[in-house]
């Protein structure tokens, strides 16, 4: 089993001078997985990304990629990973092909092998027609594709992407994700991507939810949603503070106040709606029933909303 795990984190901890960014994080990722590291901004994702990319030394614990320790075997880890940063790492003044060639040289590739591989990747990512253009002339989506092509030059077994869809429109986001799936299917590449976007995480094979430096959950999106085991009802009412204890007293279960509405988890949501309305005649303005989203899962697991600071009336206090 251990051999199939391409990424192994054990009690990984990182402290900055004034705060703990990662607390005792342990998880394994098997080869050929697309894993989303999902969490709110400031939750520790980027710290984890930087540790895996060998750019930051963890305070305690270990991280291994393809069997190599990120601290003691940096060279081997660097050769095994392809890294796509949140901010572009392309030289804007150089052409697409020149960027590819410089990258290749950094990885010890040169000559005809490098030229062939560059062409092949630019073709695969649909940017070969622009290979002579300087990067500054490319759109955001095309740049991201070149970044991905560049990261794949040395045939890494693990791709690390930090917030890959930042600044991309939805269609481009989807196309980029499709390319990750293709890489997985054709070359067995494992992808770890950090994201704060629920829809992006939803598409991945597995999701690691990281909040306040801790690993809250690690599973597939479907399995995570089953934690809730039913439907999520959102009730709007004139006085949610007054109604909440009364619903709780009558039907039991935890009810949370989210953005001025009441949120109830029920096994069979649709059947519960008439019961609820009859129990409090005239007091309920509307009820919506929905399948749980990752947002709901996050709230269920952490007790607070994913985006605390979005405003609105919410139970949980912003995490400090």
């Amino acid at each position: 089993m251990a051999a199939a795990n391409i990424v192994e984190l054990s009690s990984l901890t990182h402290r900055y001078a004034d705060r703990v960014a990662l607390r005792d994080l342990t998880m394994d990722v098997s080869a050929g997985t697309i894993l989303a590291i999902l969490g709110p901004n400031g939750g520790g994702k980027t710290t984890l990304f930087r540790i895996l990319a060998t750019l930051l030394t963890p305070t305690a614990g270990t991280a291994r990629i393809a069997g190599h320790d990120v601290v003691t075997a940096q060279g081997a880890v660097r050769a095994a990973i392809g890294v796509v940063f949140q901010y572009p790492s392309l030289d804007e003044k150089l052409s697409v092909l020149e960027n590819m060639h410089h990258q290749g040289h950094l990885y010890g590739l040169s000559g005809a092998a490098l030229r062939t591989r560059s062409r092949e990747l630019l073709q695969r990512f649909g940017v070969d027609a622009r290979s002579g253009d300087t990067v500054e002339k490319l759109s955001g989506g095309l740049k991201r594709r070149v970044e991905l092509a560049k990261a794949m030059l040395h045939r890494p077994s693990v791709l690390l992407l930090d917030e890959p869809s930042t600044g991309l429109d939805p269609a481009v986001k989807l196309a980029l994700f499709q390319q990750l799936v293709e890489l997985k299917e054709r070359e067995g590449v494992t992808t770890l991507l950090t994201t704060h976007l629920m829809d992006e995480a939803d598409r991945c094979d597995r999701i690691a939810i990281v909040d306040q430096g801790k690993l809250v959950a690690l599973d597939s999106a479907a399995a995570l949603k089953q934690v809730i085991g039913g439907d999520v009802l959102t009730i709007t009412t004139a006085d949610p503070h007054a109604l909440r204890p009364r619903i709780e007293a009558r039907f039991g279960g935890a009810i949370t106040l989210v953005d001025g509405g009441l949120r109830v988890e029920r096994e069979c949501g649709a059947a519960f709606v008439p019961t609820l309305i009859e129990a409090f005649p005239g007091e309920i303005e509307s009820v919506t029933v929905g399948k749980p989203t990752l947002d709901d899962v996050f709230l269920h697991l952490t007790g607070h909303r994913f985006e605390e600071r979005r405003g609105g009336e919410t139970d949980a206090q912003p995490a400090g």
Partner: protein
Amino acid sequence: MSRLWLPSVTLWQREVVRFLRQRNRVVGALGTPLVFWVLIGSGLRRSVVSAGSGDPIDYLQYSFPGIIVLILLFTAIFANISIIEDRREGFLQAVLASPASRSAVVLGKVLGSTTLALMQAVVFLALTPLAGMALSWLSVAASVGVLTIVALELSALGFVVAWPMDSTQGFHAVMNLVLMPMWLLSGAFFPAGGASPWIRWIMAANPLTYGMAALRHAMYAGTRAVDPALPSPAVCLTVTIAFSALVFGLAIRAVARKA
């Protein structure tokens, strides 16, 4: 070795290519010192410098070698300032995540910056007739040799300053408080002879004074007498080479310490 040389060469090449593609950088790098020289030199033209017992010298001529060293300094500053921006949001991120040796980052940057500085300095050297100076070929060769060492020295120094910094503001502070005074007090702007004793003391302790003096020795060779108060060519070269080696070593150590 492939982790050192190929990455070093590629990083060096990138520095040169991107410089040549940014026309405003080429214009700024050559134009600024030219404007400085023409304005300051012409403004102070009548102020003939006659330090020590050397021949009196026109200020345009006196400041000419100083301006060439200023070109080297400006180039070193501008080439290295990108380290700070590039590390968080740019090209350097990918370099640091690659298996390339960290020393390749130093070599690529320092050699790149040295090449750029030399290209500009040589263009400027071609203007010597405008300053009313005639250089022999031997003198040109010696000057280029000295300029190469000083360019390496200043590039490595710029690297050591820029590497640990998190913001370009910090770099500007060091530039204004350390690097520019280092140039001002190197004998580029005025000779030590007429300065107050404490300034003279600082000038003697300033490593760039020796690079500056080495350049004067090289440029004046065979055509005019050198101010006898300047340190001898042997001392100049020894101090300059030793200091270059020191800052280069510090640069290598700096990259090994901070990712």
